[in-house]
């Protein structure tokens, strides 16, 4: 057998195949953890369709459910949706349940120490790729498939080909992980990694925090990737110490067979902006024509961490946002919100005119919490700018890093210039 890539090694372990696996082979894997959120009510309905009304889940200790997508619920239907989930959780004895306000599932899962390296995390959410930041294979699936895994504890996966991405040199000052991944997506396009796993390497990575890595793994989904994995290194080891994980450092073999190898020199990278209505419609911020904004969104599973709030606070300190802009801030979890309170960041953000939301997805998916009106324009740290994404097909969404979002909120138009 030829050398194995990281995803091959992880899937071989999960499938109990000591001899390794080959590309395009079908393997059956049982996840270390399976994640879902507000969609769990619909999943539970399908689950009972499969098992009958008295069905029991395969393992209540491996199911993670976190309410984050419509939090707090904006209407009684979404409140009822949560109620169905709470009842299911009680009835099935689901161990890892996190109610409204704990945070976004992709933030809470690792914070709770549920993402050790080398494991397979399945999730009924396309941004399950986020968990690649911890050296795990975070693989997104759909609702019915999640119901099926709840019932039988496994699913089939095709062993993907791997795209190896190496980042040479270091990021310039005031350029962030968000810019790196936007630049990659702009270059390889929205289907540049479809069906593939991505492995990230290079000097830039060595210096990148867990938060930065989460941003990049999260948005690997926007290139269609099945997983986006950072091999375990000192940064991961340091993060893992708080959980006392025992693990072996898995590495891709030197003669691993990559479908493609790309390297990017980041020396001259500048902040990037994804223009409507596709994530791969990326331009350098300085090339963008003057674009007025109505809403600036800081938060989401892409950029709602303490590091992001610090970046924005540094810019907004003793400043006022433009009176024509609403600045919406959604910390990605309660623990991040708490930390932001302790550091005095919320004071800065509120004094600047920001509105603080409950830790959750917020208006990223267009249901509540600051949706746009027709004709409006948003600059957002989120991961998607699709038509209709923030509530109406007649609005426009631009994606950027937290610094650009903060500076644009001050200026009233998209910019990376200091106000």
């Amino acid at each position, binding site marked *: 057998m030829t050398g194995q890539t990281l995803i091959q090694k992880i899937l071989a372990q999960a499938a109990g195949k000591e001899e390794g696996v080959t590309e395009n082979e*079908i393997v059956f894997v049982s996840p270390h953890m399976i994640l879902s959120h507000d969609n769990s009510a619909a999943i539970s309905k*399908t689950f009972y369709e499969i098992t009958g009304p008295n069905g029991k889940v395969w393992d209540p200790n491996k199911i993670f459910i976190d309410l984050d997508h419509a939090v707090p619920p904006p209407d009684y239907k979404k409140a009822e*949706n949560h109620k169905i989930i709470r009842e299911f959780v009680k009835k099935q004895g689901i161990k890892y349940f996190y109610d409204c306000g704990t945070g976004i599932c992709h933030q809470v899962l690792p914070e709770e120490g549920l993402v050790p390296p080398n494991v397979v995390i399945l999730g009924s959410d396309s941004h399950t790729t986020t968990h690649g930041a911890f050296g795990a294979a975070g693989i997104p699936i759909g609702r019915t498939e999640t119901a099926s895994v709840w019932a039988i504890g496994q699913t089939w996966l095709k062993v993907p080909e791997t795209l190896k991405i190496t980042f040479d040199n270091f990021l310039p000052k005031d350029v962030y992980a968000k810019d790196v991944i936007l630049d990659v997506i702009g270059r390889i396009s929205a*289907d540049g990694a479809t069906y593939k796993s991505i492995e990230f390497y290079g000097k830039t990575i060595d210096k990148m925090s867990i938060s930065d890595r989460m941003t990049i793994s999260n948005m690997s989904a926007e290139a269609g990737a099945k997983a986006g994995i950072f091999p375990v290194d000192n940064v991961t080891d340091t993060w893992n110490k708080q959980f006392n994980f025992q693990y072996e450092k898995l590495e891709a073999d030197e003669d691993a067979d990559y479908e493609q190898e790309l390297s990017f020199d980041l020396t001259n990278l500048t902040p990037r902006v994804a223009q409507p209505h596709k994530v791969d419609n990326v331009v350098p911020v300085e090339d963008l024509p003057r674009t007025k904004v109505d809403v600036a969104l800081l938060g989401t599973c892409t950029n709602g961490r303490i590091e992001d709030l610090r970046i924005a606070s540094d810019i907004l300190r003793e400043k006022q946002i433009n009176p024509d802009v609403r600045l919406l801030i959604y910390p990605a979890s309660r623990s991040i919100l708490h930390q932001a309170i302790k550091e005095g960041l919320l004071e800065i953000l509120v004094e600047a005119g920001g509105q603080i939301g409950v830790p959750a997805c917020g208006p990223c998916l*267009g249901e509540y919490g600051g949706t746009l009106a027709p004709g409006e324009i948003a600059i957002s740290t989120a991961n998607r700018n699709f038509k*209709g994404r923030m509530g109406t097909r007649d609005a426009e969404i631009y994606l950027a890093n937290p610094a650009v979002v903060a500076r644009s909120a001050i200026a009233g138009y998209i910019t990376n210039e200091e106000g």
Partner: protein
Amino acid sequence: MKFKGKIWIFPDDDINTDVIFPGKYTYDPLTPEQMAKHAMEDYNPNFAKEVAKGDIIVTGKNFGCGSSREQAVISLAKVGVSCIIAKSFARIFYRNAINQALPLVISSDCSDYVIRNRYTFKNKEISVDFDRGIIKIQEKEFLFPKLDSQALEIFEAGGLVEYTRNRL
């Protein structure tokens, strides 16, 4: 399994699940019939009203990218779409379609040909022989590969609910 229907041509690449089924309906407990009313709403708001049972979509590459929401598949199936032909499908959409037993056909040649001649083929009939792997539009035929064996097993069981139920 054979399908014959009026052709709907969506010439774009990367049609995402947000425009197929908007996020604002995603966390309301809807029946498949209610989901069907929103199919393709933010791409073509008239689609759900005008589509007829059995109609077939022909589109570009990476159809169904973005969110994992299964309603994208369910709404299209329930509104009457019998089959989708594309240059390629996004990974989660593809799995969701198998799991709902909605037939997907990957054919770059057919997609290119139909999109290139979209004004000629608008509202014309197209047929798909899913078992033999043949698409027919007027006199022109295109061949396409069968599903992988695992996907085919789930598809032939009538979807993942039935497939898993049989394994309990």
